[in-house]
């Protein structure tokens, strides 16, 4: 009896834990994911309330109106149409961030910020005052951190007909200045052609595109080496142009096994290997590190994490989890073989190097303001995670500077400021050419900007992506950033 009563007490504790779990998870999921679920396209509730509310405006950082309502009198009464920026180039450049009124883009501001734009954030007092004054409710204005002119300018730099993405963010605060994805379409006039385009213009490549990061991942591999090898900076590696792992080879760019043409770098140290982007060396580093250590560093940089940023919905980057062969590990060291990352995430990786190893959480909404001009919310910068030690970040920054000064990324040089970066040319099985990557930043406290550029199926990162980065930075410096 006594024993049974003691057991019953334990049963009670167990059941209480179950209830606590329910309460904790219920409260947690509503507060953390509530807005994501609310802004889902499947939510019929928001749609049913849209007619009661005049939606708020969407503005860019300089106050340019990106989306607004126009009321027109028709036979049936007042009709409200949602219009976008007057300049077609600008509204095309911003379409993936802003979204359109039909919800073609996932998680555009139009749908993700629906609770602000459609007045769900209004307090009861405000609603009462609207009700007694007999005014139709107006939603909040959303002001973004993005610069629409920069976006339009950057969109024009991409080679004609190529898909790709570009992200510019402030690495000290995390605010995003540009987030563009190509190809683009006109939100005010969604054509059938846009809907059927095989390049899928509705797809926001900057946050939804999962690409193999290619050589830009060498930043992470190098960081792992600096962290795990005491003599990382001085150790000498031997590059033969072809590294045999199992029965296959890890080759360098330019090496063609079939014709017997082999590019080899000879003996080099980590700096030199980074500068010339030597696959052979980084494959050896990955093998020496082992899968676990490399994975741990990658996870420090945010791979395999569930990104829950406040207003940017990003696909999760992945580092392959298990059952890996030596060859796959070797290829992982150079950013291939199952690794995926979004352009935004690679921009964050570059930001971490620039910002002494601290990764800031990216955000696009600067503030929301009610129709009466009352500030509703104002964004503040938050740290996302610390990716590496400041000393390692300093060393890596030096490596990345060398890449731009005298390595694969010389096309990104800008006289007068220090540009640091890393190029990448990621192989994709289904494409003829490699994806061109460039991630980098301006190493200057007055201009703390990081960039990430991807051009699909375009060739080498140094020749295609780096010039775009250079022009974007140049434009920003000329325009007072």
């Amino acid at each position, binding site marked *: *009896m*006594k*024993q049974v009563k*003691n057991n019953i007490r334990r049963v009670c504790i167990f059941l209480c834990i179950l209830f606590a779990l329910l309460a904790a998870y219920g409260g947690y999921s509503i507060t953390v994911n509530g807005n994501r679920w609310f802004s889902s396209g499947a939510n019929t509730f928001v749609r049913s309330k849209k007619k*009661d509310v005049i939606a708020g405006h969407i503005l860019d950082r300089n106050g340019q109106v990106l989306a607004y309502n126009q009321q027109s009198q028709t036979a049936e009464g007042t009709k409200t149409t949602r219009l976008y920026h007057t300049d077609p180039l600008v509204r095309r450049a911003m379409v993936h961030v802003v979204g359109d009124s039909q919800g073609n883009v996932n998680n555009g501001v139009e749908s993700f910020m629906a609770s602000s734009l459609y007045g769900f954030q209004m307090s*009861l007092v405000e*609603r*009462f005052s609207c*009700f007694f004054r007999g005014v139709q409710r107006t939603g909040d204005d959303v002001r973004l951190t993005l610069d629409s002119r920069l976006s339009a300018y950057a969109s024009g730099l991409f080679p004609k007909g190529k898909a790709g993405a570009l992200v510019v963010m402030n690495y000290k605060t995390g605010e995003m200045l540009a987030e563009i994805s190509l190809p683009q379409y006109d939100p005010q006039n969604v054509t059938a052609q846009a809907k059927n385009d095989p390049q899928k213009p509705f797809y926001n490549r900057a946050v939804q595109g999962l690409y193999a990061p290619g050589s830009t991942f060498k930043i992470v591999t190098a960081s792992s080496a600096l962290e795990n090898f005491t003599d990382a900076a001085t150790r000498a590696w031997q590059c033969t142009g072809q590294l045999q792992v199992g029965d296959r080879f890890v080759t360098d760019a330019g090496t063609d096994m079939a014709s017997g043409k082999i590019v080899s770098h000879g003996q080099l140290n980590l700096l030199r290997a980074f500068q010339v982007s030597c696959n052979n060396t980084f494959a050896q580093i990955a093998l020496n590190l082992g899968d676990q250590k490399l994975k741990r560093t990658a996870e420090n940089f945010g791979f395999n994490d569930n990104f829950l940023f406040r207003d940017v919905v990003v696909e999760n980057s992945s580092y392959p989890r298990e059952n890996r062969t030596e060859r796959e590990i070797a290829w992982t060291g150079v950013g291939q073989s199952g690794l995926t990352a979004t352009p935004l995430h690679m921009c964050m990786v570059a930001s971490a190097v620039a910002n002494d190893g601290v990764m800031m959480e990216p955000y696009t909404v600067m503030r929301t303001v009610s129709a009466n001009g009352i500030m509703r919310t104002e964004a503040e910068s938050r740290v996302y995670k610390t990716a590496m030690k400041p000393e390692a970040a300093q060393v890596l920054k030096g490596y990345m500077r060398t890449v731009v000064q005298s390595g694969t990324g010389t096309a990104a040089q800008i006289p007068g400021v220090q540009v640091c970066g890393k190029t990448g040319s990621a192989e994709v099985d289904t494409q003829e050419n490699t994806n061109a990557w460039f991630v980098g930043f301006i190493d200057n406290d007055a201009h703390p900007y990081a960039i990430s550029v991807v051009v699909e199926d375009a060739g080498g990162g140094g020749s295609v992506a780096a010039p775009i980065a250079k022009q974007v930075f140049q434009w920003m410096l000329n325009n007072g950033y």
Partner: protein
Amino acid sequence: MSGEAYELLAMLMRYVFVALGVVILLRAARQLQKDARAHKKEMKRLPDAGLIGEVVDLDTGKSQPLPREGLMGSGGGCDIRLKRRGVRRRHVLFEFVEGKGLKIKPHFGSKVAMEGVEIKAPAYALHGTNVTLGNAHIRIRLFAGLNVPNPAAFQMDVQPMYGEEEMVYADVPQPFEQVPQAMPVQMPVSRMPWDDAISPDEAVQQPGPQMPGQMAVPALEEEMPEDYVPYASPVVRHRRSERR
């Protein structure tokens, strides 16, 4: 009512609903707490609530309260705990059966004897029955007023070993002056300032040396339930209940 007006009213009312819900829950929590406390107090007032008697350990002279059903053995969760050689963790299952007595059911392979006769199948013990578990010798003592056959009239299938004078106590639901002195040892009493209700000659004492000023503690104190008050003599309890 118009949609907007109703919606505003409903939104206002939701705070009222939550507030009422909180009130209900707080009252319920208060009630739960109050009931738990009342039950504890009640159990203090009725120290033998749910018990049907006691088990006297004849080797040490200590007694333990006897619930309606449970386990005897040396394990920590046992209702009657006998830490002795030859007593297994779970030695015996017991259960009080109305009209028959305390059913003693040996666990498989346990050595149990009732009045010196080894038993394998369940057997009924009555007031005053001596039971041997391994090397432990105990005596079952049941409260008056229970629906149990009179041991004197009832022919058990085990041979009684006790002498006649003990048989005399057994058949009494009699006034308390004649309560049997089952305790093997009576010690001089230490009196605490706060237990003035107990006069020295009425309290049953623990055997063994005791420091003056030390409370009489039941055996195996670490295993006792919180609400167990050491079993005093029925006389004391009677007086207490009269005083209330």
